[in-house]
């Protein structure tokens, strides 16, 4: 089973984690001013990258804290994990 490195707990088995989709999708700054099209973009549209993808993970059966990861969606390899208050790392 794949090991995922929780930034707080270290490497744990994949079954302890749940997936949270694309990372760095902020709630709109001015929600009252959004058009239907802009709401649709926020609610329904996410990147579906083949390759390196910044995404949210939750250590749901462990420390129950969220974190972000850069993971390759073609190889499933985790390249980097980082806390929510850290900026997206620059990967080569």
């Amino acid at each position, binding site marked *: 089973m794949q090991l995922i490195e929780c930034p707080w707990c270290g490497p744990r088995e994949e079954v302890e984690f749940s*997936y949270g989709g694309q990372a760095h999708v902020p709630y709109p700054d001015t929600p009252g001013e959004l058009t239907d099209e802009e709401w649709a973009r926020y609610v329904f549209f996410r990147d*579906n*990258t083949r390759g390196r993808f910044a995404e949210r993970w939750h250590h749901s059966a462990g420390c129950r804290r969220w974190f972000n990861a850069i993971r390759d969606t073609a190889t499933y390899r985790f390249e980097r994990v980082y806390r929510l208050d850290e900026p997206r790392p620059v990967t080569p």
Partner: protein
Amino acid sequence: MSPRTPGADLPEHPDFLWRNPEPKRSYDVVIVGGGGHGLATAHYLAKNHGITNVAVVEKGWLAGGNMARNTTIIRSNYLWDESSAIYEQALKLWEGLEEDLGYPILFSQRGVLNLAHTLQDVRDSVRRVEANKLNGVDAEWLEPDEVRKVCPIVNTSADIRYRVLGATYQPRAGIAKHDYVAWGFARRASEAGIDLIQDCEVTGFATDGNRVTGVRTTRGDIAAGTVALCAAGHTSVLTDMLGIRVPVQSHPLQALVSELLEPVHPTVVMSNAVHVYVSQAHKGELVMGAGVDSYNGYGQRGAFHIIERQMAAAVELFPVFARAHLLRTWAGIVDTSPDASPIVGRTPYDNVYLNCGWGTGGFKATPGIGWALAHTIAHDEPHPNVAPFALDRFVSGALVDEHGAAAVAH
């Protein structure tokens, strides 16, 4: 005894089912993706509309993606009118497909049971049955003892983690031999003069304003009058090249087979709640599917704990399977959409049509979507069956929520 030439006693190679032409430099229609949907679209373009200057370009081998990896279940018991229309038309086409293609597809209408395990499942299922009846789709609600009559090996006892409280039953549903379906469509399309071009990956698009003028491929540039995208789980790779945003997420979806067994399972059983669906193929292997792996993935493989969970569910529901051996597992890449319904129709480019978002359930729609997409291309106007599934529904809010009837957790 004189030495024999190795292989001399083998039968002649059977006739090839399709030509393997070099790509021409230009086609009226280029279909990207040589899976079930792409091949069916090609067939109906030729058959219904006389359009044969068509290429189907496929990055791997014909029907080697999800068409080779699905669990071959065919049914039309969806909730909403929009879905009933396209899936039921597909089912009617399945019923005459062997004759149309002149090729055996082993279509077997052995019925499908969708099990209900909670009171909410029961309420949703009964509602779906009534909706199906109103739409002319054959559907019945079965109590547990009736479930046992249709499929005696299902554990309907009270001694089970998630009791079977009943099931919807669609007698006309069934399975078909997925490879034969693809080959049948490919053979007919090729005979009609359509070029099926394998090992030909699209690497980019040539555009001129609001039009795509051609596709760039690993086998050279090909000019195109109209382009139809039928790439399922890899759709986003193509739409990213075109700068079109499409609300699909690609996930691995795993399936498995047991070794060959005597016939024990007379129908198809699906359970959304415990994440397994099972039929027994003609050869005898039990074919089972799981829910999707939760993360986005393009790797055509998934995590083993999903298989373990699926097997646990299968053995609980079918105690007789406890001694069966798992033979192999695999995964396809499914493009799930926010409302578990497909996304078909126009794109921001005037001459590019989209066909994606079928998620976990595209196989059953194969002839229906081929029919409707061919019509859409030929008339440059979405066929009524696909019109409700346009990309702009995510802005208008007119979603077609089929998470209940999709019957595969995602």
